[in-house]
């Protein structure tokens, strides 16, 4: 182990040295300055510590009073959570806002038969009507629709007149809704295309869905069929065996052509 060779100077030695040096000092050393107490931060000045103060108002509450006239989409009540529920002809938006669904007059009400504690906002059509309606009474409803003649009243005639396609397939400005394609080898009966949503001239989905059946019916009339296989008969194992044999042969052929070697290499 190492031994200490140097000793710290004793307090007496230091005092002697201090007194000796003090005589050499130019200025007098200030003695006993008044001590100024330092205050450390004991409370957070910023941030979450001071509790969120009231922010800007969110403008919640009733936007329409009871009895006021509203039209569909009007905001009746803005709220956080569901203080009010949508009653007759009202609906609730994404942030629980109550909107009007029909034109009418606002009613604030409770309906114990429907829910014991909920408060509802509903609409009535006439000023003298009330909510909730009597129990077991038929609901008050409005249609809110008008009847129009359909713009293209003869799609069925067009279907039935497929044998005699019109001679003017070009689009005329007066009747741009339907065009007729001439019969081709693919479509021996021609095609009747109508203007669909998205500005496409095409057949209706219903007609497209029936295309295979129509084709088959036409082939049947000629004594042929468009089907690759006969009508599916459950339990006809021989037909199933023939089908699967064809499929297996086709798959083998495909394997032999393209990926046969690759597969063999992997197998090895």
């Amino acid at each position: 182990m190492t031994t200490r060779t140097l000793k710290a100077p004793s307090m007496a030695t230091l005092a002697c040295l201090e007194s000796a040096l003090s005589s050499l000092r130019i200025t007098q050393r200030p003695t006993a300055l008044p001590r100024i107490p330092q205050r450390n931060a004991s409370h957070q000045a910023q941030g979450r510590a001071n509790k969120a103060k009231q922010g800007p108002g969110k403008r919640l509450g009733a936007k329409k009073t009871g009895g006021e006239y509203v039209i569909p989409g009007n905001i009746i009540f803005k709220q956080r959570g569901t203080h009010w529920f949508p009653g007759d002809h009202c609906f609730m938006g994404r942030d629980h806002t109550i909107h009007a669904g029909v034109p009418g007059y606002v009613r604030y009400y409770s309906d114990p038969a429907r829910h014991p504690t909920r408060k509802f906002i509903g609409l009535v059509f006439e000023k003298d009507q009330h909510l909730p309606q009597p129990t077991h009474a038929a609901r008050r409803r409005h249609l809110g629709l008008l009847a129009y003649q359909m713009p293209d009243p003869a799609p069925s005639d067009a279907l039935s007149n497929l044998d005699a396609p019109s001679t003017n397939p070009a689009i005329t400005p007066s009747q741009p809704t339907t065009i007729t394609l001439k019969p081709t080898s693919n479509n021996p009966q021609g095609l009747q295309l109508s203007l669909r949503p998205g500005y496409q001239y095409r057949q209706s989905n219903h007609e497209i869905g029936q295309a295979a059946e129509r084709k088959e019916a036409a082939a049947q009339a000629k004594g042929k069929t468009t089907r690759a296989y006969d009508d599916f008969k459950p339990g006809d194992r021989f037909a199933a065996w023939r089908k699967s044999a064809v499929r297996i042969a086709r798959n083998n052929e495909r394997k032999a052509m393209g990926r046969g070697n690759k597969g063999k290499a992997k197998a090895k």
Partner: protein
Amino acid sequence: MAMDKMARPLTQCLQCSRHTHKALHIRTFSTTPPSRLEVEQQTPPPPPPNDAPPPAQQQQQQRDPYTVSTRHAETQLLHHQRRVPIGSRRRRAAMASTTQIPFSQLPYQCFQEARAYLKEDRDEKLGAIQQQRERIERLRQKSVPPEYAWRHENRVRSMLTSLEELKIQADINDPIVKKTFEDGQGDMSKPIYRHLADKQWRAYKRLILMQRITQMNVIPDVLPTIDPTVSTDLAFPIMKPSSIDNTPRLPRLKRIQHGDFVDSALSENAPTLYIQPYDKGTRLVTIAVVNADVPNVEKDGFDYRCHFLAVNIPISPTDTRVQLGQLGDDQVVLPWLPAWAQKGAPYQRMSVFILQQAQQSRSQSQAQAQSQPQSQSQSPSVNTATDSTSPGIPLDAAAIRDEPKYSTRLGFKLRSLVDRFALQPVGVDLFRTKWDGSMEGVMQRAGIVGWDVEFKRKRIEPLPYARKEGGRYR
């Protein structure tokens, strides 16, 4: 060795049911699942286990619905014999290789003890039934002063109710009954099977029905309220010609869930209704199909339209099918009108209501009951229907046809009909219809005008803009 065979089903439950040909040496057990035991009394001896025969013979082979266990055999049973397999596949596989010992001779002592106990309980209940019948008989013979007749009637009725409960209690613990019901072979003329079927219906299907008719507001829009006691099943015939030679096939039926949307081509023909009551006896019902959403532009609202109305249709627990298109002239008031909805109109709820016609008045029925000899009450058997009540008072279809209020389709009010003829709503069904691709053809074939009418939204005038004071806009 017999024990070995006994325990085989259990081992087959442990292994895969498709590989039954593999012989497995197992330790023999002395117990076996009771599900197999219940069956053995009724099932005929099974055909040899199902190793696949050559395809030529498969066509002729008769499959047993109790023992088919391969997918292939099940398919064959379905297609060739038009039968569905009974029970789970594991159970069928187990049964195919089990020796058939009569139910009463099975060597499980605990099981036989349990059977004896149940039999004792059943005998007790049968005695109680007999006693209750005698009591009712005695009570009926008693002469009552007219001012206390109502009390007497109440007493007889409550005793009859308790008699019905006893009949159910006598059979409810029988494992064979439970098994038969779960196989779907319950005889609905017997109270126990009616009770079980009712319980099953109320546990799930009735809840769904009630949810649909309340959420879609069939009640209170069509009738104020209803408490269904009969279950209904709606099916539409599919009139599809054969794709090979265009000859009409026998119509297949497509079942409709309560409240489902039905394609207009499907609902063009009158549906078939299966109405299943769960209490005994034949009753006469009125069937009405009402559309509650017929748009009316003039009044900016909706009307009712009757699509079908027929009266005096007898239904009973065993006779449930009603083909709405094939009812007699003394029944049909308004024949089937295809369900239709114009383009753009909201979907339309077609509600089917089963309304029970009034029974005979109490004094009449009592007189009839007293005049009839109560021969059936002598037999102790639980399973026969003892009280034959009259089906109900038939309505006069021709007279209803003459009343414009009920023979006019548009503006038909079911509430009014129910009040006028004292009908009791006992069943309800619902389907919906909306505009689709085949609606136009359906409407033209039915001779309905308005197939080229389209509904569009009415413009609603916006509220006037509240202009604030001028200083804001500078």
